[in-house]
């Protein structure tokens, strides 16, 4: 996490304004996880809608607990060998004073811990899009717990923790291009290489069941992302957070236009799914870069991300891996684009005085960005594949073929997303499932 530089020489004092702002930003980032659930949920077929929603929602439960217990300490505690952090006072968030400030900022440690918690929740949820329709819920829950422990907490330390190798190297990642998006995208690729394709991939039609839900989710993500990005400066004393806010909007708008233009030329239509996906690709790409580039640079990054991600989502059909909802195509590719383009578009007038190639800075920063990108990508890909393999060989990652075909919602959650019996037509069903007293079990014609 990029940290606000306090201008005064004396020790910073608690700022009520920054604290209030950061609490709101934390809540905005929290909203991104349900937003993501809708974004993904609308893209799957009716029979696995609830599972898709739940794969994100469970992260709000599991990761929250682990974060309090040890996650915050591992991610942001005192550096151990440039790889992990540790601070025993933070275990259980128990020995933290109410007015104790996060290093170099004017906000309480509790606020910083809450803000970062929301990132830790969102990142594993992002992975779930690649695993649609086919993963046992218990296996997924276990995977999340292991993954944040082995991958996310350490990688957050690398990138944002003082003493982490990428942080010390000078890799710029304002709000999570590497730690969140490349990390989640590479993990998604690692897991799907282990668990394999959905039954019927490339044969059966797998159309999104509700594009309005996808659009709603994209809107919530976009809204929440202002907190994710602008909040990552942890305060507003020097205007960098505001630059990030502007660039978040600018790049995202540009990416919508870029994706739609590519689609219209290549496939002949301006699709709703393309607009929603374009928005997310722009948000992903500007996440690492928005504090370092100008609004015109943000337009360039947005358009490039929109077009390249629109091209990248087709790769899974050619290469034969089932990245169901394009976590690789959007988050991995978008994260790489945003992280690397900093090397070209950094103006030297934003979060730091480091300039990219187009602003007279040479390729120095670009090479640093490459190191950050490929370090996180390689580690996340391999570690995630190993974790998935461990679970796959013991508990099994996948539901049975029957359950997958019939729909994972019924098998894993004992529910269906929508009651299609409708007015009038529902007579038979209503009779069969009439709510008689709290019965042990009831028969329903689903």
């Amino acid at each position: 996490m990029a940290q606000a530089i306090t201008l005064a020489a004396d020790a910073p004092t608690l700022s009520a304004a920054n604290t209030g702002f950061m609490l709101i930003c934390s809540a905005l980032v929290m909203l991104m996880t349900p937003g993501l659930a809708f974004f993904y949920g609308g893209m799957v077929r009716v029979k696995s809608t609830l599972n898709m929603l739940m794969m994100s929602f469970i992260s709000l439960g599991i990761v929250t607990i682990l974060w309090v217990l040890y996650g915050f300490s591992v991610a942001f505690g005192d550096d151990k060998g440039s790889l992990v952090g540790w601070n025993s006072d933070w275990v259980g968030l128990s020995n933290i004073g109410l007015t104790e400030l996060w290093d170099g900022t004017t906000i309480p440690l509790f606020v910083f811990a809450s803000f970062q918690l929301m990132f830790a929740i969102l990142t594993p949820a992002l992975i779930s899009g690649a695993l649609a329709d086919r993963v046992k819920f218990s296996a997924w829950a276990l995977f999340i717990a292991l993954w944040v422990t082995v991958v996310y907490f350490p990688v957050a330390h690398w990138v944002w923790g003082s003493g982490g190798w990428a942080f010390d190297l000078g890799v710029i990642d304002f709000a999570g291009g590497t730690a969140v998006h490349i990390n989640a995208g590479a993990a998604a690729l690692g897991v799907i290489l282990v668990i394999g394709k959905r039954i019927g991939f490339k044969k059966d039609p797998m159309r999104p069941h509700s594009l309005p839900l996808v659009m709603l989710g994209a809107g919530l993500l976009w809204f929440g992302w202002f907190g994710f990005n602008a909040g990552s400066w942890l305060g507003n004393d020097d205007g960098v957070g505001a630059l990030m806010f502007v660039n978040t909007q600018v790049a995202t708008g540009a990416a919508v236009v870029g994706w739609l233009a590519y689609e219209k030329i290549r496939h002949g239509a301006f699709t709703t799914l393309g607009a929603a996906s374009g928005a997310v690709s722009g948000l992903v790409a500007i996440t690492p870069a928005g504090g370092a580039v100008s609004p015109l640079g943000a337009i360039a990054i947005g358009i490039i991300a929109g077009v390249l991600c629109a091209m990248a989502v087709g790769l899974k059909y050619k290469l034969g891996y089932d990245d169901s909802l394009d976590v690789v195509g959007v988050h991995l590719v978008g994260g790489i684009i945003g992280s690397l383009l900093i090397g070209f578009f950094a103006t030297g007038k934003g979060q730091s005085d480091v300039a990219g190639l187009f602003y007279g800075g040479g390729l120095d920063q670009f090479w640093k960005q490459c190191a950050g990108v490929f370090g996180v990508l390689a580690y996340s890909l391999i570690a995630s594949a190993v974790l998935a393999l461990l679970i796959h060989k013991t508990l099994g990652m996948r539901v049975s073929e029957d359950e997958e075909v019939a729909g994972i919602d019924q098998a894993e959650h004992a529910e269906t997303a929508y009651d299609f019996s409708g007015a009038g037509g529902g007579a038979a069903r209503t009779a069969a499932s009439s709510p008689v007293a709290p019965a042990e079990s009831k028969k329903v014609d689903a």
Partner: protein
Amino acid sequence: MKLITAVVKPHRLDEIKEALQAFGVHGLTVTEASGYGRQRGHTEVYRGAEYTVDLVPKVRIEVLVEDDDAEQLVDVVVKAARTGKIGDGKVWTIPVETAVRVRTGERGPDAL
């Protein structure tokens, strides 16, 4: 008695209903249907993946009529359903052995 079944374009439903009412038909049943004949489906694109949707939405209209009216009513339906473009649908009749009005128990043509 005969059962006239028409599978036609959904937007012609109102025209057909009015034409039948004008003729003196008192009741009909409509269901949403999908299918294809010479008119094939359309293509949809999701993130570059193209899906051919074969089945086209149609409505199926069913009318029970007396034998004498059948031929003429078929013409009424066909006339109201026609747009002249591919995909206008089909109309056919089949003989019906019996019909009962549930409320009164009337049988045969009286039940219509």
